[in-house]
């Protein structure tokens, strides 16, 4: 009987407590102890409900008590004490701590508003920190779920001359690395393709990975069922992901049977573990089927191909023991240098290899955003602590009489500090408990919105998160507890009892004010960050991508190379598909293009033309599509024509930026350029048209130079072709009709990735929007907290100065003057905070720069708006206490005591 969830928790808790046992105990008895528990657990099957309910609590209590006993005395505990237990002497630290805690508890219960405000403030601060930390922990700190993940590296190519930072490499390159790089114990590669899972009623497009047979061994991942690939496995051997096995086969026993991909059978030898993902910067998060490379690509010799056009592999490596990443990089540089010498195309492109720890590549996209948010919540916590510290200062002020009395009666300064710290401790623990609850909810939310694009791991609170929260709790106690405690204990001894009831100490007032100024400054920094992101998001929405994505439906089809002879049959299929869909009601036009703008897929290569010839080669995005793609996507023609009846193999349409770069001041139409879209070597194309620039990739980047080729004669198989449909109504409502049309054309070709372009664009802005939303929340909380802090200090000051204000009124000051006096005082604090904060913001917002779009990190409008907002908040927070100051009852405050 395997343990259930509750029992697993119990076992984990016992394991946690065991960490605090003496080392030799753990070494000698930990495994025996777990076996004991396991034996008891199994015996529990026949026990009654009460015994079962009490089982884990009993074991835990036993473990904790034993731990305390083992830690408390080193002496033998086998012998009893015939004269009864020793009673702890009075005044021993432990006894006094206990009584202090009880005293603090009573004192806090007597001041419920104060206690609640502090606990809620701390809870908010700690909760936000825990939530963000749980994301940081899960995404950045947790090791990847492979064997010895710290020795795994990812390998990619880059083309220095062509300005390509991170891309694929070819099979021969892999062989060269294997032969030449001693620092790599193992090396494997993957390339993803799209195929159709057929043989069932509704075909499904799946992501298939061609893999080296040693890939899973390299990662140290063993299949849940069956076996992994072994050397010599023939093409046609496949493994399924757990998810596809469940979804497509209902979890039936499929080992030894076949799966149909585009009508061809593949032997299933194994099922990968549930949730297994191959994490790499250049791979989709989820692959459904893994297989040995097929014979129909390069005659199955995927590892023998060489050259830029055959660069389709993503590499994984395991470092040899004792080798370092620097040594590895050095040997890879050598390999690249040799390849550049041997292969002219590599020399022209400036081939080099990028080796980085696998983990770095995986987290590369989200690291910046996460660390930014982590810093922001850290600020919120500081503000919260400052607020609480202010409250504590005010409170210790009102208790100074009591403390002075204690000191006068012989209480040591240490004991006074201990007493005050006991209170801080209780508050911090309360805040931490609340914060853990809020943090849990927060981390669920973050997981729900999928922070961390490449399928984040589980965000659940584990030991690390708990330890983090405990650490924050201790930090809070020290921050807001120790300073007031030290101050109060110092003050308590030095002044006569009678004097204590007067005004606050100068030093303490200064501390109050410093805290408020710091809070305002921190809020300014946060608000500026949030403001800059808002400005960016607004700018992002205003960006014109160069085509009209509203009302556009897009989906993909993948034609099997085993049944479709390219190019004639695939061309014919795409043409028929366009014709069939065009007849559907609600469809304005249809076009095929690859890659579709904004879907994250890209395809780039070099070209030579006009002025470009003279200098280095230029790099352009290549697109292939049917003639109707321009009309369907709404790409504006500027000059010449688009594809027509001319021989499609000889013509090209270029984007405005290509025309301007290659033939500045001249007409591009009629000129010739050289390009190599199909990997068969460079050939000449005549420019027949110029179209407007389109942003195919990141909206935040300038539009890429683009060459459009006619797909006729070049359409592909085993690859997703994007079909774009311009619709007149709601794009998604057409999906069923299109699916039906497709099935009549070929019942084994499914429609995949059907989505409106609007939702793609929304996704694209997702990270920015989420970062903005969270930063906005943090800034909002910070503003409120700073406002409360300012209000608290001003109210307190007004209370302290009542007598002075009364005298002023009695001597003839106008109530208006009093208002101005108090407001002016608050304004000085606010302005000081704002000034400091603006300096901080200028220094810190530059870390935001890579999230900003068409907004500079020192955007004046944002800075002005934030300053205005804080001054308003500051004045509002001061106004209420100031009004109260004008209503001071002169007779009352001046009455002799």
């Amino acid at each position, binding site marked *: 009987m395997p343990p259930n969830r509750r029992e697993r928790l119990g076992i984990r808790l016992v394991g946690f407590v065991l960490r605090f046992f003496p080392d*030799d*105990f753990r070494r*000698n*008895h930990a*495994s*025996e*102890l*777990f*076996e*004991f*528990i396991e*034996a*008891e657990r199994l015996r529990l099957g026949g026990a009654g409900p009460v015994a079962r309910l009490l089982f884990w609590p*009993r*074991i835990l*209590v*036993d*473990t904790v*008590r*034993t*731990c305390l*006993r*083992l830690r408390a005395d080193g002496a*033998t*505990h*086998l*012998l*009893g004490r*015939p*004269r009864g237990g020793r009673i702890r002497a009075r005044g021993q630290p432990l006894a006094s701590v206990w009584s202090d805690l009880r005293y603090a508890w009573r004192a806090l219960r007597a001041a419920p508003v104060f206690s609640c405000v502090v606990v809620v403030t701390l809870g908010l601060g700690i909760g936000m920190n825990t939530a963000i930390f749980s994301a940081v922990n899960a995404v950045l700190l947790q090791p990847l779920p492979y064997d010895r993940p710290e020795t795994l590296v990812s390998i990619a190519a880059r083309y220095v001359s062509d300005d390509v930072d991170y891309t694929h490499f070819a099979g021969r390159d892999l062989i060269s690395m294997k032969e030449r790089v001693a620092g790599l114990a193992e090396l494997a590669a993957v390339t993803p393709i799209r195929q159709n899972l057929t043989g069932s009623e509704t075909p499904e497009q799946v992501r298939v990975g061609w893999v080296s047979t040693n890939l899973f061994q390299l990662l140290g991942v063993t299949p849940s069922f069956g076996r992994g690939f072994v050397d010599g496995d023939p093409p046609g051997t496949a493994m399924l992901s757990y998810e596809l096995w469940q979804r497509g086969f209902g979890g039936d026993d499929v080992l030894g049977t076949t799966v149909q991909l585009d009508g061809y059978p593949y032997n299933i030898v194994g099922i990968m573990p549930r949730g297994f993902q191959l994490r790499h910067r250049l791979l989709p998060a989820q692959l459904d089927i893994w297989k040995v490379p097929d014979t129909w690509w390069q005659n199955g010799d995927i590892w023998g191909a060489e050259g830029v056009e055959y660069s389709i592999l993503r590499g994984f490596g395991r470092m040899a023991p004792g080798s370092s990443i620097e040594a590895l990089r050095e040997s890879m540089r050598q390999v690249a240098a040799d390849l550049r010498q041997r292969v002219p195309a590599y020399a022209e492109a400036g081939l080099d290899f990028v080796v980085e720890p696998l983990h770095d590549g995986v987290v590369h996209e989200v690291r910046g955003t996460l660390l930014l948010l982590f810093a922001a919540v850290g600020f919120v916590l500081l503000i919260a602590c400052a607020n609480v510290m202010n409250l504590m200062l005010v409170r210790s002020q009102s208790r100074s009489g009591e403390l002075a009395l204690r000191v006068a009666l012989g209480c040591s300064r240490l004991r006074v500090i201990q007493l005050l710290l006991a209170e801080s401790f209780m508050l911090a623990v309360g805040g931490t408990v609340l914060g853990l609850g809020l943090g849990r909810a927060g981390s669920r939310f973050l997981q729900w919105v999928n922070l961390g694009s490449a399928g984040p791991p589980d965000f659940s609170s584990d030991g690390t998160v708990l330890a983090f929260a405990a650490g924050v709790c201790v930090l809070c106690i020290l921050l807001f507890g120790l300073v007031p405690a030290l101050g109060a204990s110092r003050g308590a001894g030095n002044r006569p009892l009678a004097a204590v009831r007067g005004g606050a100490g100068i030093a303490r007032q200064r501390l109050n004010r410093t805290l408020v100024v710091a809070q305002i400054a921190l809020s300014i920094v946060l608000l500026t960050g949030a403001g800059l992101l808002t400005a960016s998001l607004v700018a992002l929405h205003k960006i014109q991508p160069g085509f009209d994505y509203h009302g556009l439906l897009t989906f993909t089809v993948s034609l099997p190379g085993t049944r479709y002879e390219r190019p004639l049959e695939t061309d014919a299929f795409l043409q028929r598909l366009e014709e069939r869909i065009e007849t559907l009601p609600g469809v304005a036009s249809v076009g095929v293009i690859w890659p579709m703008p904004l879907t994250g897929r890209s395809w780039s290569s070099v070209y030579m033309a006009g002025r470009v010839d003279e200098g280095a080669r230029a790099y352009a995005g290549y697109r292939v599509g049917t003639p109707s793609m321009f009309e369907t996507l709404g790409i504006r023609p500027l000059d010449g024509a688009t594809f027509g009846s001319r021989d499609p193999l000889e013509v090209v349409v270029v984007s405005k930026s290509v025309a301007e770069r290659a033939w500045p001041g001249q007409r591009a139409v009629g000129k010739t350029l050289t390009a190599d879209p199909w990997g068969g070597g460079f050939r000449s194309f005549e420019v027949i048209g110029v179209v407007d620039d389109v942003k195919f990739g990141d909206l935040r980047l300038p539009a890429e130079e683009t060459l459009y080729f006619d797909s006729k004669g070049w359409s592909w198989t085993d690859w997703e072709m994007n079909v774009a449909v311009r619709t007149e109504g709601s794009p998604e409502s057409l999906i069923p009709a299109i699916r039906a049309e497709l099935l009549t054309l070929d019942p084994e070709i499914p429609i995949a990735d059907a989505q409106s372009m609007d939702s793609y664009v929304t996704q694209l802005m997702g990270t920015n929007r989420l970062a903005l939303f969270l930063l906005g929340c943090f800034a909002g909380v910070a503003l409120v907290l700073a406002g409360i802090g300012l209000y608290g200090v001003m109210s307190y000051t007004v209370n302290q100065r009542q007598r002075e204000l009364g005298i002023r009124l009695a001597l003839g000051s106008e109530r208006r003057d009093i208002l101005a006096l108090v407001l002016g005082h608050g304004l000085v604090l606010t302005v000081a905070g704002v000034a400091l904060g603006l300096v901080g913001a200028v220094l810190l917002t530059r870390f935001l720069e890579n999230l900003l779009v068409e907004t500079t990190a020192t955007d004046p409008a944002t800075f002005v708006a934030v300053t205005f907002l804080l001054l308003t908040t500051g004045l509002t927070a001061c106004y209420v206490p100031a009004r109260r100051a004008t209503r001071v009852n002169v007779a009352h405050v001046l009455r002799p005591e």
Partner: protein
Amino acid sequence: MTTREAVNPRQILTPVALHILLSLADGERHGYGIKLEVEDRTRGSLTLGPATLYEAIHRMEKAGWIEVTDPPPNESPGRGNHRKYYCLTTEGRRQLHAELHRLNEIVRFAKSKKLFSESRPS
């Protein structure tokens, strides 16, 4: 039974220690075996928690009262490959005897005062 001078009347064993020593008196046992034997012998009035048991074992090992020994030949290793068997050392046996002797003295004294009859356990 003439080890009177060896017994320090101030030194008494805790019940847990006494029962563990008793349980090991007739041969080696593993930790869980000790627990089952004690529970059985005391008819469930003394149940040992895992940490308490191993704490006592840990301390007794350090004090040299018990030691790890080979498992009995008829015991199959099976899944309990972490199981260690313990047996009494000479010192452990001496401690047990001293405690039993002390208890016996008390019982004798109580009987002489006719505090309980021998025939019926209370």
